[in-house]
């Protein structure tokens, strides 16, 4: 069979968000791999320059639904560093607790998605059912299931009371038991092992060369965790291990994530136990003095970097952010070398991609205001695109369909 070009995306059932991948196949083997990114470009970096700091917390929280705490904390930390404000210890603990709860929900979500990609829908249903425990808890603590809105400059917006601490400990007990079960399933179920082992191999050297971060890097034996290396919030006051694996494949990534959940439960118990009393927010000026700061955060998917430059007004001069997926995407090509077509979804899913986080910046609307296209305009745009980019002319075909009244 000759080489076949198979498009995976921008719209494809395997991808939860639009991103264009192309694989060249020889039979079922992958010969080459290409990607076209940027379908989710929303202009967040530019928009951040036009908004005040307080508005930006909520804007940057919405870079990603799943790592919303990661992005807002990273931004808030950077601004607090510029402003020279030390937040209360209790606020640090609350931030860490929400961040860890978010990690639980993200990793359980990933487990479900991975199950779905290899056609194991039961795993998806079960792990997402158990994820509801932590989602409900987050809704109870913060007032929302995903965009928690917990951060503000100088601390957090809501306190975690005694009752909520009890709830957290109860939820952690349930989740720990379930996670143990999933670890057993993932490591001992033959079909899962068959689909995961040896897929998406990336060596330690390549991980370092391509700058891969988070669980993807740790599964290749790179013990890099911002919580340990560059502790923020309350992470320098607790004990935990950085989980690594040496199998360098998707199986290793799954195991790293699952074992990381166990570490997270350990962390949550410590945070709840050691949480100091006192204030949870201090005053922060609306205008931030000039300066710049870089802030790093270990999001569930890896290292999240924010750079903020302030110019003394109430709006930032420049906000730059990099989500973990952007660093990890470069490694996908390497991972897919010599794999099968059937492995593409799980290999891509294994970096826990979040394309919306990756893309960010630029205006949505061109013609000053909202831009509503008619069906005919959209069709025309598609025809032009194919003509210019691929050299295929669909004009005749379009006429034919129009004559049929379609």
């Amino acid at each position, binding site marked *: 069979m000759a080489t076949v070009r198979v498009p995976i995306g921008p719209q494809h059932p395997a991808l939860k968000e639009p991103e264009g991948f192309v694989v060249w196949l020889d039979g079922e083997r992958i010969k080459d791999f290409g990607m076209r990114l940027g379908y989710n470009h929303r202009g967040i970096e530019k928009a951040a320059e036009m908004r005040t700091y*307080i508005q930006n*917390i909520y804007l940057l929280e*919405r870079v990603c639904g799943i790592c919303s705490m990661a992005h807002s904390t990273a931004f808030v930390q950077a601004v607090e560093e510029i402003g020279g404000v030390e937040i209360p210890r209790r606020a640090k603990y609350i931030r860490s607790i929400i961040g860890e709860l978010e990690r639980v929900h993200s990793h359980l979500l990933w487990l479900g998605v991975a199950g779905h990609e290899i056609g194991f829908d039961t795993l998806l249903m079960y792990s997402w059912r158990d994820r509801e425990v932590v989602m409900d808890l987050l809704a109870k603590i913060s007032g929302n299931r995903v965009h928690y809105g917990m951060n503000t400059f100088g601390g957090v*917006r809501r306190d975690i009371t005694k009752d909520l601490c009890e709830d957290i400990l109860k939820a952690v007990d349930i989740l720990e038991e379930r996670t143990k079960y999933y670890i057993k*399933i993932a490591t001992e*179920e*033959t079909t899962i092992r068959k689909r995961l082992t040896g897929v998406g191999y990336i060596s330690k050297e390549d991980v370092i060369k391509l700058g891969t971060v988070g669980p993807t890097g740790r599964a290749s034996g790179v013990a890099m965790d911002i919580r340990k290396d560059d502790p923020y919030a309350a992470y320098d006051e607790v004990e935990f291990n950085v989980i690594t694996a040496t199998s360098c494949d998707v199986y290793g990534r799954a195991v790293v994530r699952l074992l990381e959940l166990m570490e997270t439960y350990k962390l949550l118990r410590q945070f709840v136990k050691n949480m100091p009393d006192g204030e949870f927010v201090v005053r922060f000026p609306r205008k931030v003095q000039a300066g710049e700061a870089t802030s790093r955060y270990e999001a569930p998917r890896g290292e999240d970097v924010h750079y903020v430059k302030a110019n003394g007004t109430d709006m930032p001069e420049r906000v730059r952010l990099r989500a973990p997926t952007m660093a990890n995407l470069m490694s996908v090509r390497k991972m897919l070398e010599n794999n099968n077509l059937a492995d593409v979804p799980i290999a891509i899913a294994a970096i826990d991609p979040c394309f919306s986080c990756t893309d960010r910046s630029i205006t949505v609307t061109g013609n000053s205001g909202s831009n509503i296209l008619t069906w005919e305009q959209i069709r025309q745009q598609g025809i032009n695109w194919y003509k210019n980019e691929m050299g295929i002319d669909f004009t005749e075909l379009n006429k034919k369909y129009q004559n049929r009244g379609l």
Partner: protein
Amino acid sequence: MIRPGKMFKEVLSHLFKKPATINYPAEAANMPDKFRAKLKFYADKCIGCKLCMKDCPANAIFIEKVGDTFEAVVYLDRCIYCAQCVDTCPKKALEATPKFELAQIDRKKLRVKINEK
């Protein structure tokens, strides 16, 4: 032990258990008390400082003067339910409620005037 069908027992035991899902629109879904959804506005407390308008990340809230009192106009489709306005308000004239079922077919109905005495 590595073997196929590891979930067999767990799965079979769920055949006679109560499902975890609910039949949503028919059965009500409840949110916790502190959930941030639709806003409440106490006109008598408002002093018209419009700080909430300034801090709103989505330009969703507008305070208008009607006669002697104030009135809050909220665009429910723009609102991102962060409840920053509730935090910002110096007089506690705004409050978030857990009423979250706000969808409308007509977009115009999403512009609501909130005025609670």
